[in-house]
């Protein structure tokens, strides 16, 4: 069973239908779901047509895609941006989350999708991710524990913009 948790480790409902990278406008029209997470490229190319379906959209970006697929308006209105990890060792999406939060001021939900494992959760949270779509193999209790693996970190991060050297007692 796929599990979605938030930064506190609480299980969350996941009403979003995740469409694959090659999804078409027709696929969106045919899906019965009201909340649809579409690939960034489709969103960029078919935004008006997608919106005319009356559904609610989130957008997901693959690790080799950048925020340039999103407009300023998107950043103000999208309730959910998901960032993919084709493999957990592909670290690009950590920086993408940073750009979304620190440079573009995105305040909606940033979700980690793909190869999302227990041992990366703390760092993901620190970089501004707000939800984690865990791989089937991850035990929920393990994931909840992992979110508090460290008490703090040295560097300035999205979650704690003040670096440790400004916080040392």
């Amino acid at each position, binding site marked *: 069973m796929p599990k979605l948790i938030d930064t506190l480790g609480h299980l969350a409902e996941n009403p979003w239908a995740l469409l694959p990278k090659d999804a078409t406008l027709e696929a969106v029209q045919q899906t019965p779901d009201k909340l649809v997470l579409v690939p960034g490229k489709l969103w960029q190319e078919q935004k008006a047509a997608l919106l005319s379906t009356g559904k609610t959209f989130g957008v997901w970006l693959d690790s080799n895609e950048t925020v340039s697929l999103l407009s300023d308006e998107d950043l103000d209105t999208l309730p959910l941006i998901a960032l993919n990890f084709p493999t957990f060792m592909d670290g690009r999406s950590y920086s993408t989350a940073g750009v979304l939060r620190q440079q573009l001021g995105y305040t909606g939900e940033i979700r980690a999708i793909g190869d999302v494992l227990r041992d990366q959760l703390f760092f993901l949270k620190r970089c501004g991710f707000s939800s984690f779509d865990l791989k089937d193999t991850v035990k929920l209790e393990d994931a909840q524990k992992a979110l508090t693996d460290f008490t703090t970190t040295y*560097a300035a991060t999205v979650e704690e913009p003040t670096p440790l050297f400004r916080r040392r007692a």
Partner: protein
Amino acid sequence: MYRYDNYDRQMQQDRIAQFRDQTRRFLAGELENAQFLPLRLQNGLYVQRLAPMLRVAVPYGCLSTAQLRKLAHIARHYDKGYAHFSTRQNVQFNWPKLPEVPDILAELAEVEMHANQTSGNCIRNTTTDQFAGVSPQEIEDSRPWCEIIRQWSTFHPEFAHLPRKFKIAVCGTEDDQAATQVHDIGLYIVKNFTGDLGFQVLVGGGLGRTPVIGQIIREFLPWQHLLSYLDAILRIYNQEGRRDNKYKARIKILVKELGIDAFREKVEAEWEFSKDGPATLTEAEFLRCKKFFTDPAYAALPDEDAAVSEKLRSDIRFNNWLERNVRGHKKSGYRIVTLCLKATGAAPGDLSAEQMDFVADLADGYSFNELRVSHEQNLVLTDVKLSDLPALYDALQKEHLATPYTGLLNDMICCPGGDFCSLANAKSIPIAEAIQRRFDDFAVQKNIGEITLNISGCMNACGHHHVGNIGVLGVDKKGEEFYQVALGGSSDRQTALGKVLGPSFAQDEMPDVVDKILQVYLQRREGNERFIDTYNRIGIEPFQEHVYAKAD
């Protein structure tokens, strides 16, 4: 020396608990090998040819005697009684057992040491000049800056899964002893015309398969902006560095493909967002770190000593040792002493547990309880009284640690090679030993003069062969080990990459080949020219002609 506070201690305890649990899950079959791999690497653990290898960080080469004794203890209790000091100023244990590694990390934490990020695709141990803080040629002590970078890079959440490893070196002296220009980022501490402190920032240097000398990305970065600027470089690299081919994944390839100007534009645009933000360093933080590196309680001493002068006259071996292994100090009456770990017959950089304890005793007695590791795989006592040199020398002699070859031919850099490393194409230690045996005579070494000979057992270049005056690279030719020789490399302020001499040689030919190269130098040198000076003047051809000449 830097001392942990509660934050440092707590984070290290968190890390050990995390890795202990990861190891438990791996051993219980709950964590796949591929998932455990980067986790163990970022805790220093490789799987090598014969056993795991644990690489312990010696942050910027600074070691206390308590730490050295702990390393000796680990060598004795968890390993086979010795350890290897590496070209990254780190320490490697070749025989730890995986289930015991969390315990080793806990022991290290007792003396404020760790193995964080000593391998894997992350920011590695920051390195610097082994004479930082005591060199008379110093512009500014690099150690506080190294510690600031160590903390910033430790567990930096955004940069734990970079395209490839990432190495930063800081240099605060006129004569670069840190091979700064062949690091992913090289930082030269500089003062601008108004006397303000900052960094000249180089990016895209590196050895390995494609050696590249770093290029200047910023002439003067005021020190306050160090971390935000590093963040900007790393973010661009993390996003745009190649991930399709691990041999093209280092930042040097990205910088080359984009060109330094385009890369700089990207970094500066990125930096605009974080410049002057909370990551900006404060005077308070700089001073906090600086106060850990103040001078020890030096005595006011004359810069001469009658007993030393007398021993110099009467003891030729002491004379040789002092000439090669002892350097001038910023403080009158003190000297810097290198312990050249290149005794013929011992693997370069290796030290037994007994020797480590012994060296710790000497550092306690003669050098304010501290020592350094150099990237040339030697140890350094930084603060020895001139008047203590005879006693120190006598003690070192007994443990075969007074080899008087620092900076000479036999002080070669040599990776562990095919005897230990699973990446190696060829052995390197036996080559080093064969060459050392051929030239193991002080008069011969002295006549050859200053020279660097660097040996790597494979393209990964842990032995820095690209930047040796003579560089030796082990290659595999249809299952047989051969050695390619290059000349003219150097890793100082005039960093240069060596040029390949020609077809490679069999192992047993190597001492002769080195001999022939040196014959050309000795015949052609003018005045006090060092090997590298003669090479730069006459070029590679005379060497090629002589080495590859057909016998009559």
